[in-house]
């Protein structure tokens, strides 16, 4: 995916974009005048207004529900790792509280060859864009964006009333838009992989939204966060009491507008003396290809990725080193 804007000079950074905006010539406006000013650190560094943690009932797809089983010795099988990052900053036009968010998103597959990670097909996907509620911007500012040949992605849905809103709400809309763009890149990469390669791909996060890749036997999603726990009643105790190298019985997740997936919890590291989510991941594979044996097999693959440890990342107990490598790689570029 190409960036959403590109200049003749070749620059695509936010500074290049701001310079282009500043130099854009529009009737009745002085070129060179200040257009937008930066406001604070990256949005990803500020707490997001996330949905509250919740328990979600599930449909078991294995017999002996609410039990655990040891998956066996780790086996190295993943050929590549997929992850993406995003970074966004808010800007404000002079005298206007409507945030204009510049978001950069990137995704990469790092392929493992001879125990060393390389960028698959030698290129990551990187995209830059401005996000704003266009109806709330001044016509002069919109004109300046047009003159500078910089598109703005509208954060308001068609039909939304262009009323004044709380700036924080507008920021959240923009932030979600950036996230969707990042997910789009990840999906595009995942589909490219499963369309062309015949080896397992370790995907950071769930795969139910991964389009064709969500149906591929070569896609394995590993979810590290547990704001939504697919458990209720006794099954919660089963999850939090998992031993190292053991998994729960699998269940089906069938979200709206997304593909159904088979999922189970897996304990990567010994959590004795630690919080109940230490080393706990949730695995997603295509529903169609699920069997109990496959769940054990995939679990063994994931266990093999506990080493090397992805320290100093704070999520090291659940993060595969290949995923950390993807993030570090992308941070160096973005």
């Amino acid at each position, binding site marked *: 995916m190409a960036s959403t804007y590109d200049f003749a000079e070749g620059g695509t950074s936010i500074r290049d974009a701001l310079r282009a905006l500043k130099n854009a010539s529009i009737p009745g406006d002085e070129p060179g005048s200040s257009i937008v000013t930066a406001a604070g650190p990256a949005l990803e560094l500020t707490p997001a207004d996330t949905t509250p943690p919740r328990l979600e009932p599930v449909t078991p797809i294995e017999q002996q529900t609410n039990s655990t089983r040891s998956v066996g010795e780790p086996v190295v099988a993943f050929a590549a790792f997929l992850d993406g990052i995003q970074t966004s900053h808010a800007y404000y036009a002079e005298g206007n509280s409507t945030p204009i968010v510049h978001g950069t998103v990137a995704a990469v597959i790092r392929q493992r060859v001879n125990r060393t*990670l390389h960028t698959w097909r030698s290129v990551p996907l990187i995209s830059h864009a401005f996000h704003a509620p266009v109806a709330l911007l001044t016509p002069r500012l919109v004109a300046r964006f047009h003159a500078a040949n910089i598109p703005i992605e509208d954060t308001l849905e068609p039909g939304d009333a262009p009323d004044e809103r709380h700036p924080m709400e507008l920021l959240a809309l923009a932030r979600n838009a950036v996230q969707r763009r990042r997910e789009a890149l990840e999906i595009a990469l995942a589909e490219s992989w499963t369309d062309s390669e015949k080896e397992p791909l370790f995907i950071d996060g769930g795969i139910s939204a991964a389009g064709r890749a969500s149906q591929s036997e070569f896609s394995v999603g590993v979810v590290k966060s547990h704001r939504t726990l697919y458990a209720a009643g006794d099954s919660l105790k089963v999850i939090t009491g998992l031993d190292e190298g053991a998994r729960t019985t699998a269940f089906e997740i069938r979200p709206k507008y997304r593909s159904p997936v088979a999922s189970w919890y897996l304990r990567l590291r010994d959590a004795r003396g630690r919080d109940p989510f230490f080393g706990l991941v949730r695995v997603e594979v295509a529903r169609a290809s699920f069997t109990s044996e496959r769940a054990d097999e995939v679990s063994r693959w994931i266990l*093999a*990725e506990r*080493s*090397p*440890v992805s*320290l100093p990342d704070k999520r090291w107990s659940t993060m595969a*080193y*290949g995923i950390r490598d993807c993030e570090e790689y992308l941070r160096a570029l973005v």
Partner: protein
Amino acid sequence: MSILGRVVATERKPNTPHEFHFWTALDSPVGIGTIVKVVSAQPVSGALPVVYGVVVEGFGYTDVETPLHEVLGYDGEPGGDLGAPTRRTEIRLYSAAVLRHVPEEPLQPVSMGTVHLASDEDVAVALRMDGYLTPGANTGIPVGLYRSGATASPVYLDADFLLGPEAAHLNISGVSGLATKTSAVEWLLASIFAHFPEKKGRVAAVCFNVKGPDLCFLDQPAAKLDDADRALYERLDVPAEPFKDVEYYAPYTAKGYALNTLRSNEALAHNVKPLTWGLREVLQYAEVLLNKDDVDAKADALIDFIKERVVDQEFTDPKYLTSAHRVQSFGELERWFRDLLGGMEKQNAESWRTHHVATIRKVRNRLTNISTRCRGLVTDDGTVSDLPFGEFRDRAVYVVDVANLEADAQDLIFSRIVSQLREHLEKRDLGVEHVIVFVDELNKYAPSDGPDTYVRAMLLDIAERGRYLGLVLFAAQQFRSQVHRRVVGNSGTALFGRMDPDELATPGYATLSPATRTKLSTLEKGQLLVRHPHFSQPVFVRFPRPAVLSGREGVERFPQAPEQTLEEAITRALRALDNTVTLEWVKDAVALAEEEEVLRARNRTLQAKPEDVKAYFRAQLKRRVRSEATGNPPRQPLKKSPTDDPYGF
């Protein structure tokens, strides 16, 4: 030209005009001492600057933030988790010292760009060798081969900066026992003889062999010279053969029969010559041997008087001397002293020509003692056998073997030979225009501390002014820090073999990076770090094993001659002039002569090199008539006394 790495600069590690940093792949052939070329990405004045550098430091690290994380990753078990499916991200980061900017101006910090291994041409440009390797004006002297990856580029020294007049002198440092210092000099002399431009004049070398048999077999081919060495010779265009023109000089042993050298095997005797001096030669350098605390101003005045007014001329003093004296040898000087002191005693005189009798006795004691202290070198009879001053040959090596001599005699030999070289070079009548003087153990002759000796003063003089004359000092020592700083400071070129870590910790090596110092302390045989005026930074080179027989192998192949009788020694000495001389003939010729007389006759014969050796030698011996047996005269029988007449006689 493949890309080896990329320049990187951070606020913590910024690039400067003299240093830059770059990263490479883990398997890149970069190491300490590698010469690299940076092609900048940012044009300056319309051109992309090119920067050449030599790697002086290397860093490697992973994405682990602290060692504790690594320990945690292995659960505290160093041997555990060997099957990790992914290698940690690891980086190789190098620091390079800038050798050259092209263009030279404006001098800016090294900008971002791609890093490449230097090719042959790049090495020439980086080391500024392109300035003196131009066709028609090539003054390059190969010093070794720079190697990195697939690159193997000859490195040349500039003859104008090695042998003068621009700069001169060479200093070699290295630990003992690895044959680096001597081997490097032997190799470099061969290289100079092969490449020194003829239009720059003739060049010869005088080497002082100060220990063991190191330089005793320069004219003999090496026992082992493998294919790699031969390839180096070929690449550097130097013939892999021993020196063609070598002469050896050594004093006699104290006994005076044989020469005091480890090159005493008869098979090698053809170019070994005695080094002997008489009174005149020694007196010029008396201060080398006389302790300044011992010889005060009064004694000095008397020695000057003797040098100016007594030696080599008719000297008379009817009041004190019984006869006229012509002093030309230590023996005659002793007779002169004896006559003078006898005359003074007779007349009960306390002084003679303002010199007190005690001073005269003291000077007599010190001067006549020289011939004892330097026995074998100094002759009582004044016979002189010396280096061929005035007839030095182009590309010849003159080895003076002083390895077995006392320190005093070594000092005397060194001082006189170097002074003679200097005098002849000043007069332009030495026979060559450039002389390389090689001295090992420089920290002994020119120490950084200790008393100010004649030898040290002379070495300082050569170091500071020799290049104008063509007198070039090649000096070697184990500890450069212990050599007088003016001597090493004036050496335009410096070579370093494997160095002692303690020595490397001295301030003189502070300009070298820690990695370069570490490499120096573990350097292989045959490798050198070269510093030269044209090189902005020192570079590592590899040189071939010398194509001459090493001292250790030489003494095995040519064992020392057994101790000889007087007759055998004379036979051997005279056979160098006339191979018809036999031991039987010598025995017959010297049968009646005193030992001292025989040795004197030998010395004179060797000095004169007559056509008829036998006749000349016999003529030097006093004529003696063999005693003949004579019959006893008939005895007269005693008269018998009468038995009966006691008075009857």
